[in-house]
């Protein structure tokens, strides 16, 4: 399983590309920088730990090496956070957001808050940007057959199994409900985090009438169902329970529930519930839920 340093360097570079791609909007958002020094250190600590758990889940169920044991998954997750910290520090310095005359807590806060989304992006980039198409080097890549066939090695419910994707290797696939939840959560966080810290979410939430919010909820549900079951998104066939109206409704509801929970979590982290009436807090969750649904459905299928 050991590969050459050149190959792993390439893999890290892919990770960096993924990290930048997915966290770019956050690197250029003022509210995120502000949260870096406004948030209590313990909140940042909780953020790091939550991201670590999310990475463990993603690397376990969708990462490059799905057959890896817990230790390897943990090592990968720590590496991803480490790369996230380095990339965040470099980018923030290049963008003039951290300078050496700022207080230590401000520098650490800004880096931490940016590094976590970058870390998730690194994980997704490492798993997704390689493999396909480079037949020559594919052989020496770790876990290459898994990576290219989208194969799941985890046991579990096996609806939708045995669909051939027409790529090389064995395409025996099983839909693992728990794993799908974790990946849906990652997708939701990855996409919703990009808009969550902005003032716009609060503004829309405050200005929306109840009917608009209900319309947004129905829209989100329909969006999730459409992406997962109708448009034949790449990978949807293998990864999503197929079938009758009942399972479509179930899948869409679960996806939306994951989206709402993720959006509540992100808003909580950015301190959007502080000094806010319950109705406004809930409205924010629903407003952000649209982005989170997109992440939990299309995003999930993309980052598998």
């Amino acid at each position: 399983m050991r590969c050459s340093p050149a190959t792993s360097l390439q893999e890290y570079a892919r990770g960096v590309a993924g990290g930048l791609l997915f966290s770019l909007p956050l690197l250029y958002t003022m509210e995120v920088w502000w949260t870096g020094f406004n948030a209590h250190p313990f909140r940042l600590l909780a953020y790091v730990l939550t991201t670590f758990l999310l990475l463990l889940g993603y690397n376990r169920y969708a990462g490059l090496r799905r057959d890896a044991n817990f230790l390897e998954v943990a090592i990968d997750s720590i590496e991803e956070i480490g790369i996230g910290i380095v990339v965040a520090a470099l980018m923030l310095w290049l963008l003039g957001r951290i300078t050496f005359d700022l207080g230590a807590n401000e520098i650490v806060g800004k880096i931490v808050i940016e590094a976590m989304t970058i870390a998730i992006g690194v994980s997704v980039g490492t798993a997704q940007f390689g493999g396909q198409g480079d037949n020559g080097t594919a052989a020496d890549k770790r876990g290459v057959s898994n990576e290219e066939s989208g194969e799941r090695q985890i046991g579990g419910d096996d609806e939708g199994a045995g669909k051939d994707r027409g790529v090389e290797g064995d395409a025996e696939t099983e839909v693992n409900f728990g794993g799908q939840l974790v990946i849906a959560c990652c997708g939701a966080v990855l996409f919703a985090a990009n808009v969550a810290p902005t003032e716009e979410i609060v503004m829309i939430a405050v200005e929306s009438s109840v009917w608009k919010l209900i319309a947004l909820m129905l829209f989100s549900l329909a969006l999730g169902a459409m992406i997962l079951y109708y448009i034949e998104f790449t990978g949807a066939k293998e990864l999503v329970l197929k079938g009758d109206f009942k399972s479509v409704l179930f899948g869409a509801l679960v996806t939306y529930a994951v989206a709402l929970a993720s959006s509540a979590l992100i808003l909580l982290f950015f301190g959007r519930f502080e000094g806010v009436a319950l109705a406004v807090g809930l409205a924010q969750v629903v407003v952000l839920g649209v982005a989170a649904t997109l992440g939990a459905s299309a995003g999930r299928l993309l980052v598998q």
Partner: protein
Amino acid sequence: MSKVEKNWLEWLVFAISLVLVAGTLGVLAYDGATMGDAPPSVEVKVGAPQERPHNFIVPVEVTNHGDETAEGVLVEVVLKQGEEERERSEFEIAFLPRRSTRQGWVAFKIDPRSVERMEARVLGYEKP
């Protein structure tokens, strides 16, 4: 548990990452544990006036000694001759994080060196 096989680069990256992650967690935990909950306490220091082609400017250094961020910090500098107020200037700092310092300038028409004293103070700030 099976053996983890890695090449030297991967071990290096892992080692650096481990140090960074552990260090970050340590710094955050220490910072959180030692941090009080004092409201912003803002100190204003004025430097030596400088002459510019169109006006006179005075560097101002504003420091927050509290444990909370102050937002929209309004700083005022008054030039006084005895009890008589000669000129007044102000500027605003968008964010002044806890335990940190920001710098700015106030501008005057008259030469601040020609009056008896400069009085600097902070007018107010928001909780972010």
